[in-house]
């Protein structure tokens, strides 16, 4: 029998940690088509550790009640847990104040909120918003919509052939009419890490606020919103081992205070008469209706879990996986890696000559290897590279070198089938 370290391909204590972490994720024990699951679709969503599953179940089993409403004991417990989760988020991204943490459904809702509540009232036809060529549709379409509503212009900062943001071109696009910069922190389709702090610096020199789409970055990079000095930061819980349906908008308090509510209804008001309604304070002004209480508590548990391992440890292990995968992929004839930025994390996106990504996905799936194929909700980026789509393997800290090897073996099988 092989030793674990042998399976992983190198000695050391870190691999034992990976196997220990894997035991915390029940789904990783599943088989698919009779083969052990090799889950390499982490950019789409991550798996959940038992502690997150337990946290949600414990809420519903023992303290389910609505928040911010009742005088009874359960309502108080639920409120305490919900607000404790908010503070965990605050600490995780190093925000100054828990009032700056708005619970939303996910990154998409966070961006729509900023588009409609922050940007829309400020935009005229002389203004513009800047995105990049490598945005996810969720960081394109909300801005297209608000531009259509106001007559403002949507400017697109280009990326080079390696999939890196062209910082000089970006700087030239920022002008007196620019009202907001909305950029990804880590591209879901390419894995490129954008120079977020530098982007913020350039934008702020023109007095322009910056929203960072952190849907991918949150699980791979240590995010410090105060060090980045970004004005808004959006992410989804499910991409960092948390539940679906819960996400976060961070915004600087002064900006959030100046914004009208996005949705209106219960819990977000101070007083209501038919003549006039006074809105609640931050963050409740932006949390109309009963929130996803269990989801927020689950997200808090996920952040506890990830923090206990540590983002530095996670980043180092994922770096090793990506280097290992990139090295092996480069040895495959006809394979072209899409996205070769110097600063990359977590994603190996590629095409294979003569084989459509969809067929790659089906054949790999047959061996239990789950990847994503297609345009990755980044159709303009695919057009930029002149392709219809890619096959994408995306890694998490619980993946092993052996799983990367299974991916590469699967690709050999794909080529063998198609070269008959």
């Amino acid at each position, binding site marked *: 029998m092989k030793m674990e370290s042998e399976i992983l391909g190198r000695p050391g204590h870190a691999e034992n940690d990976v196997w220990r972490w894997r035991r915390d994720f029940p789904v990783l024990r599943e088989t698919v088509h009779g083969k052990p699951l090799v889950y390499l679709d982490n950019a789409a969503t991550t798996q959940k550790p038992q502690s997150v599953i337990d946290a949600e179940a414990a809420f519903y089993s023992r303290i389910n009640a609505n928040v911010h409403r009742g005088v009874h004991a359960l309502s108080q417990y639920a409120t305490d847990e919900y607000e404790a989760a908010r503070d965990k988020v605050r600490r995780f991204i190093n925000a100054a104040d828990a009032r700056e943490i708005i619970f939303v459904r996910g990154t998409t809702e966070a961006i729509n909120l900023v588009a409609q509540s922050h940007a829309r009232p400020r935009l005229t036809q002389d203004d513009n918003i800047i995105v990049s060529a490598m945005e996810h549709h969720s960081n394109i379409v909300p801005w297209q919509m608000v531009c259509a509503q106001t007559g403002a212009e949507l400017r697109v900062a280009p990326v080079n052939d390696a999939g890196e943001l062209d910082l000089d071109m970006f700087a030239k696009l920022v002008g007196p009419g620019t009202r907001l910069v909305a950029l990804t922190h880590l591209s879901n389709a390419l894995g490129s890490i954008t120079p977020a702090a530098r982007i913020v610096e350039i934008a702020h020199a023109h007095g322009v606020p910056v929203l960072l789409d952190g849907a991918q970055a949150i699980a791979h990079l240590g995010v410090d919103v105060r060090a980045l000095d970004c004005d808004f930061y959006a992410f989804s819980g499910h991409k960092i081992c948390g539940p679906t349906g819960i996400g976060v908008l961070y915004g600087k308090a002064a900006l959030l205070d100046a914004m009208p509510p996005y949705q209106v209804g219960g819990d977000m008001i101070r007083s209501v008469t038919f003549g006039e309604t006074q809105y609640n304070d931050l963050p409740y002004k932006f949390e109309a209706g009963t929130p996803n209480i269990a989801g927020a508590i689950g997200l808090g548990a996920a952040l506890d879990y990830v923090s206990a391992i540590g983002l530095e440890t996670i980043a180092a292990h994922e770096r090793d996986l990506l280097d290992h995968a990139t090295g092996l992929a480069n040895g495959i004839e006809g394979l072209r890696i899409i996205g070769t930025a110097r600063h990359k994390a977590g994603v190996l996106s590629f095409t294979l000559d*003569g084989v459509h990504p969809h067929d790659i996905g089906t054949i790999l799936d047959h061996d239990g290897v789950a990847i994503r194929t*297609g345009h990755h909700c980044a159709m303009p980026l695919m057009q930029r590279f002149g392709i219809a789509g890619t096959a994408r393997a995306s890694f998490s800290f619980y993946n092993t070198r052996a799983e990367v090897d299974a991916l590469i073996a699967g690709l050999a099988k794909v080529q063998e089938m198609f070269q008959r």
Partner: protein
Amino acid sequence: MSDLRDLYQEVIFDHYKKPHNYHALAEANHVAHGHNRLCGDQLTVYLRLEGDVIADLSFEGNGCAISTASASLMTEALKGRKLDEAEQLFQDFHHMVTHADAEPDPALGKLEVLAGVREFPARVKCATLAWHTLQAALKDRAEPVSTE
């Protein structure tokens, strides 16, 4: 357990690598664009209808092995057919790729190589894209049809 070879048969690869009737049709009197939202694949079907007979049929586009082979096989199967025969063939084909218990149907001829698709539900849309696009072409729909 489903077998990959049931899906990826030799004939499928032949039609993927060298699709038949793969060109635009200058004399087409019906055209439609198809789009698989799942993967972004695009397909155009050209059709020349004479009375109720499909006199000529072709396609262009960029797709996976299954959608390309299915489009290629469809153009072969339908050339010279009457519209009601084409409609019946589509019904039979659709039944074959969506029903695990579908009996072999001699009327389907070569199209039967796509029967394996029924074991791969995620790929049914690939196999039916060309057929949906053909239906749109017959109705002269201006909007691209999708498989949703």
